[in-house]
């Protein structure tokens, strides 16, 4: 799964949904893989504004990526900063999580990722 997926996932436990601690989930012991994708400025321009930037910054720093700017860059900033454009392209579109887990900071439940597929089925006591 692409790292970007984490921006759209939360803890599956019902009582966690209303708490801000359930998003983003925190990657733990994750192995990353990357592929090469042709970079297309239009893609990043249209994806960046729909992301939760602070959640993305948290995910990136927890996975050991260099710090992101405090707020999402505008189209003009991105056009003027080739390095930032390249870093974001790599982070969002080329980076996949292959193994590890995603942990909810509210309930502590850990969702395992195997071969790039995270398992959000809950044990009976959490359903």
């Amino acid at each position: 799964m692409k790292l970007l997926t984490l921006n759209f996932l939360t803890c599956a436990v019902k009582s966690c949904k209303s708490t801000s601690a359930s998003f983003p989930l925190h990657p733990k012991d994750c192995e990353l893989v990357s592929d090469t994708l042709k970079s297309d400025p239009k893609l990043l321009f249209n994806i960046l504004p729909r992301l939760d930037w602070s959640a993305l910054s948290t995910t990136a720093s927890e996975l050991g990526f260099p710090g992101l700017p405090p707020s999402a860059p505008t189209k003009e900033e991105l056009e003027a900063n080739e390095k930032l454009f390249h870093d974001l392209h790599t982070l969002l579109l080329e980076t996949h999580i292959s193994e590890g887990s995603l942990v909810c900071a509210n309930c502590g439940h850990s969702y395992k990722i195997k071969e790039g597929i995270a398992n959000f089925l809950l044990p009976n006591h959490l359903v």
Partner: protein
Amino acid sequence: MLPTPSTSHVAFERVYEPAEDSYLLLDTLSSEAEKAFLQRRFSSTLTGVLSPLVVEIGTGSGVVLSFVDAHAETIFGREDVLTAGIDVNRFACEATVQTVKVAEQEQVVQGKTSGIYLGNVVGDLAGPLRSSTVDVLIFNPPYVPTPDLPELPALSNTAANSSFEDDSHLLALSYAGGADGMETTNRLLDSLPGILNSDRGCAYILLCAQNKPEDVKQRIRSWGRKWGVETVRSSGMKAGWEKLQIIRIFRT
């Protein structure tokens, strides 16, 4: 007609094999009427309409999600479409990853674009999704009326060498819908207001005649004026009854 993605690599002993219902979804999503609807709603020339996120629940072999991903530009009029899948069956998730990969490679060979596939997760319906994030949701439910609803697979049931009973259970999850074939679909419908984008969100859901589609539509109308619902495609006329139909639920 847009080509149907290949699923020849999928083990159909434990993953639902594409059938009439899957193809009805492909026909619907690539119909002139639905392309026009989606392009109006998600046009990249409208200000504020960012890359849409398409989520399919119950991806099975992945034939529908890979079709939308590979033909994103034709269907949505833009290639920056994000796609993702959820299935309760891990084997179905693995199959979908592979099916999307093959379909995207085929697009590359033909010099054509595809969307941006994020991945598949194992999960129960919309459970793993953050609220208000989904622009287009696609669901081909377990819609066959059955006396009982099969239990969700146990968390540990991920062994590669599963038994015949395990395989049958996974297949049962893909079709057995409990009372009126609606028990699982009703749970999904309940979650729609929470997960769909509050301005543009819409959902394509397949129903069969035994699901009492008119009752389902009436129920959605009772959600109020901010919601619309239409039958956008049907098939298999039998004695005046459509056997299968696709309804589109949408924010107005």
